[in-house]
């Protein structure tokens, strides 16, 4: 019984006894509670005893538990990055050593035997670097990307093949903060070529996902207002909610269904003119499409329009996906005929033809490429608008050319194409379209051709930038007779000189420009319909340490001083890149340190807050014990004397 107010009047003994019992019970309970608080250090034992403190406590406990995971991930990340850094340091040293070997091997005063010895040392160095690149730590090959369970670099003859991928393995180190705890083989060693890739402008199809629109950025769908006024029936306005649409087909379905009860009705399809946007055609009259409540749904779909007979939507720029049809590329014009065409892929000594006649989708194309068995990497480029095909083999030349059609160019993956920059040809050495004369003045270096009719011409190439411009310059000399074009098979420039009469040899004089364009040579047959076929002067090679070392070994064996001097520059660049890369890893390690410091600070702060809300204040407990004890004692004393007092004692 709780102790309430007493009314004036009689006070039965039973009442005073029960009040005493209850006050004793309350005080002993309070004492017990204080004792429990002192014993456990907890302020409360059930959340309801102090709901606000308990809720904070629960939240703080959760945060502490979660932060503990981050510290654990952080430790793992650090050990992996430190191991990667150490392996890269080894490679950096090997590169410095390679540079010394280049210097030692350059010049006329080095004998062939010495060069062979140096080449042997380079071979050993290469194996050492491959060993470092195949470092394994905590059960992971550090430089394989996500393919971490097999050695990522494999020496195959004179090439080094990268078998990993380019995935950054993200790991959480704080709430909402992640960091890659690996360096993939491409980032670390540039074990693959930089992929040739062009925007192939995939056309919109009904199956295109909304999330793939606008270059993969997608858009947020909601309600739009569509009004159709056919001039006959009353104008119909419908607010159409597109939020549930996942594909372009869904938008079509929902919009058409909204007007299904017409007339007037509505038809939605892909605009056949642009093939990149929607077309909305009312059954008659005009359609008006507007956004509702300031949203940007119709605008983002490119269909916001005032009253128009046909609404032609804007370019929705869909992402290229594995399911994109090859026929939908290049704004729906496709990649040209695939019968008796396809791709011609050259990698080192291997030349493979890829037949695309059965390929419908991008994935089919990839499967066809995969079937060549060549060590290639293929996928969608980072911008999501083109294909990216790269060679994984360091030390081998790689090229994708046509096989009689336009497929490679249509796919945007031809390694030697009209818009290839002259400066990029020959591994970046370019084409010397101008040179300095004896006085040091810049003069043009012309392309010199002896035509089939015996005349000599010189074509000025000064100021030209691309392969197509060179072709155009040649074609301008004698239009329709002297015709330059890209090789129908493979890569390079072909020149045809057919005036219908002359049958002399067609000669491109061997000078620096002609060599650099791959054109130097003679077509000595009598048939003027046979062109002079140039060679591919834009072979792709990985640029990394393996490419340098394999090239170095070959150059030392062949005593190629020109290549050695170029390798010297490449080695310098690679050493600089390695320093930058190690700096970047150092930056990540520093971030880990910073975050760890912050996590430790957080931990202390959280513990402190937790203690404030959850821990019993011992001083307070002890003080209250003293007070409660005094109260208990007083109650007992008063009760003892009070209960003894009775009239019967005095009768």
């Amino acid at each position, binding site marked *: 019984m709780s102790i309430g107010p007493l009314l004036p009047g009689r006070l039965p003994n*039973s009442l005073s006894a029960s009040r005493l019992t209850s006050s004793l019970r309350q005080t002993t309970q309070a004492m017990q509670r204080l004792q429990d608080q002192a014993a456990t250090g907890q302020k409360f034992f059930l959340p309801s005893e102090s709901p606000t403190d308990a809720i904070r406590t629960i939240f703080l406990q959760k945060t502490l538990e979660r932060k503990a*995971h981050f510290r654990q991930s952080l430790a793992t990340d650090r050990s992996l990055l430190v191991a990667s850094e150490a392996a890269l340091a080894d490679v950096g040293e090997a590169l410095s050593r390679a540079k010394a070997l280049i210097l030692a091997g350059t010049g006329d005063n080095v004998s062939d035997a010495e060069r062979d010895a140096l080449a042997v040392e380079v071979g050993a160095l290469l194996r050492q670097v491959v060993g470092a690149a195949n470092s394994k730590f905590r059960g992971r090959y550090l430089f394989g990307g*996500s*393919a971490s369970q097999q050695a990522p670099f494999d020496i195959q003859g004179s090439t080094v093949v990268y078998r990993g991928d380019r995935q950054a393995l993200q790991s959480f180190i704080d709430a909402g903060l992640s960091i890659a705890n690996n360096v993939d083989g491409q980032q670390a060693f540039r074990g693959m070529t930089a992929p040739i890739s062009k925007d192939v402008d995939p056309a919109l199809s009904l199956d295109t996902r909304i999330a793939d629109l606008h270059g993969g950025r997608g858009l947020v769908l909601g309600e739009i207002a569509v009004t159709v006024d056919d001039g006959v029936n009353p104008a119909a306005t419908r607010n159409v909610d597109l939020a549930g649409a996942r594909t372009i087909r*869904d938008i079509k379905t929902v919009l058409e269904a909204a007007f299904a009860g017409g007339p007037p009705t509505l038809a939605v399809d892909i605009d056949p003119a642009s093939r990149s946007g929607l077309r909305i055609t009312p059954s008659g009259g005009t359609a008006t499409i507007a956004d509702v409540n300031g949203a940007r749904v119709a605008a983002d779909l490119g269909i916001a329009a005032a009253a128009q007979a046909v609404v032609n939507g804007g370019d929705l720029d869909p992402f290229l996906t594995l399911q994109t049809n090859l026929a939908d590329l290049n704004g729906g014009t496709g990649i040209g005929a695939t019968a008796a065409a396809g791709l011609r892929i050259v990698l080192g000594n291997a030349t493979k033809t890829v037949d695309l006649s059965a390929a419908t989708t991008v994935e089919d194309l990839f499967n066809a490429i995969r079937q060549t068995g060549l060590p290639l990497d293929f996928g969608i480029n980072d911008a999501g608008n083109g294909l990216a095909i790269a060679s994984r083999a360091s030390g081998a030349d790689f090229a994708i050319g046509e096989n009689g059609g336009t497929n490679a160019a249509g796919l945007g993956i031809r390694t030697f194409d009209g818009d290839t920059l002259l400066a990029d040809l020959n591994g970046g050495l370019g084409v010397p379209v101008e040179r300095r004369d004896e006085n040091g003045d810049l003069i043009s270096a012309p392309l010199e051709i002896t035509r089939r009719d015996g005349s000599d011409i010189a074509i000025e190439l000064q100021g030209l930038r691309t392969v197509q411009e060179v072709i155009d310059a040649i074609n301008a000399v004698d239009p329709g007779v002297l015709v330059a074009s890209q090789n129908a098979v493979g890569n390079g420039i072909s020149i045809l000189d057919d005036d219908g009469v002359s049958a002399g040899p067609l000669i491109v004089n061997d000078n620096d420009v002609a060599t650099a364009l791959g054109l130097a040579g003679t077509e000595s047959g009598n048939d003027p319909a046979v062109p002079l076929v140039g060679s591919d002067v834009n072979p792709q090679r990985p640029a990394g340490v393996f490419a340098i070392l394999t090239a170095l070994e070959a150059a030392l064996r062949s005593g190629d001083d020109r290549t050695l001097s170029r390798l010297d520059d490449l080695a310098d660049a690679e050493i600089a890149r390695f320093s930058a890369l190690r700096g970047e890893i150092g930056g990540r390690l520093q971030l880990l340190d910073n975050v760890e410091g912050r996590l430790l600070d957080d931990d202390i702060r959280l513990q402190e807050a937790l203690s404030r809300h959850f821990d019993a204040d011992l001083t307070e407990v002890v003080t209250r014990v003293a007070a409660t004890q005094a109260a208990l004692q007083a109650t007992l004393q008063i009760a003892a004397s009070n209960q003894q007092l009775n009239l019967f004692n005095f009768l």
Partner: protein
Amino acid sequence: MGLNAALATAGRSLELATTGIQVVGQNIANANTPGYIREELQIAANLPYSQGTLIFGTGALALGIRQQIDTFLESRIHTANSEFETADMLQAIYKQLETVIGELGEGDLSTGLNRFLGAIHDLVAEPESDALRQIVVEQAVQFAGEIVALRNRVNEIRTGLTGQVDSTVAEANRLIQQVGELNGQITRLESAGLLQSDAGALRTQRYVALDRLSKILSIRFVEVPDGSVNVFAGSDYLVLGDRTQQLVTASSVDRGVVIHTVTLSETGSDVARHGGQLFGLLEGRDAVLGGFVDALDSFAAGVIHEFNRIHASGEGSSRFQSITGTYRAVDPAAVLNEAGLPFAPEHGSFRIKVVNATTGLAETHTIAVDLDGIGADTSLDDLRAALDGIANLSASVTTDGRLAIAAASGYEFAFADDTSGALAALGINTFFGGTDSSTIAVDPLVRQNFRMVAAGQGGGPSDNRNAVRLAQFSENASALLGGVSIDSFYESLITRIAQESASQTAIATGREGFRDSLLSQRDQFSGVSLDEEAMKMLEFQRAYQASARIITTIDELFQTLLNM
């Protein structure tokens, strides 16, 4: 009439004083009897008579022995009793619930969830580790086990409360019976009585019974002139004269446990819903604990489906050669979101990749799940047909309504980009199985082969892109939980229970104080004060002595008269 009259008066006085002493004795004897109502001898001056011009008194007369009780106060106490008992029972149940949740300790669900998430974080950092994959599975098994254990503990409490309902109903029935019997006895005993409270002890027994009954049920009593009381609960009678109505229980199954509901035997009313301990028991069992079970079911369903939705779009380090869904559709021909699946898919699509295990050549197909409600929507049969149409893949619906997919020999398959939730809803490439807190478990396929933990999205063994998403699954808004995340759903659940429990405790304390103040008033009015009784005893003693003195005096007067 002179001396004889005076003697008679004095003689009656002696009797009266003796009676008074007897009443005092009764009061003192029962001073510590719980519920005892003190009695008081009602005395009045006897009828006078006239003789000539004089009117003489004839002494004092015992009118009767009256219980000192305030029946209006008694009614208020009954109301206060039932209100307090409801609140007290509820707060006790809340405390039990808080104890089984154990949120402030180490073995609670949030710690289990955090350990599970921690294991996923570890896997994100080192996705190639088979050991960490296994730990993810083990932590998930433990977490699912903790949810089931919590559910079982709540079930146990609910079963226990049903037992308590039974015993409380039995007690109430005994009390109703007792009041009915006492009614008869009191009526018979008091039919010749002077006052309407002569049968004191029996009345005390009846008051005690009513007091206890008012704690169990919210009751109202009316005393009728023959001394019996009629007892009502709401508009139904429990006791009407010597007729009584009993409480009866009926069994039913609610949220996986057998419960007993209470009704009246004659009128069939849901009498227990009016208040009292019984109401607290039923409300605590069905609304408080039942409500928690519902919330826990939602939480478990949220965990299962949200995790599965992400998981179903990922790839493990092995692909499937065949798989059978874990969830069954009641009607494979019905539209998928009305086919009786435990989780409803939505409009969207998913991708399935068929890979030639030898050459690595892959073919990806997008399977549309059309559930936009326009035109023909996708049923499980449609889905099966679409999958079956893919080269090197066969799909079937088992007789119990599960989707089964198998690849041709030498082929494997994997899933990706499920925007529809159909895979998760069919239990294909899922991590958790079950539908609620009593059935949640880790998918047996994943449990047997931890390489099926879909950490990647089709890359190498260290592909952790899906694990990165899985690690954040508890922070994503869940449509299943009304748009809040699993984390905040759980937090608000615990917060709600803590606050409701605290307010229930406050209500109980408040009602207890009110009831106690009423009890204290009753005690003050009806309790026995020894000092007071001692005073009365002295009064009667003196009265007896004085009366005896008068008799002696009259005796002397008679002597004098006789000796004349």
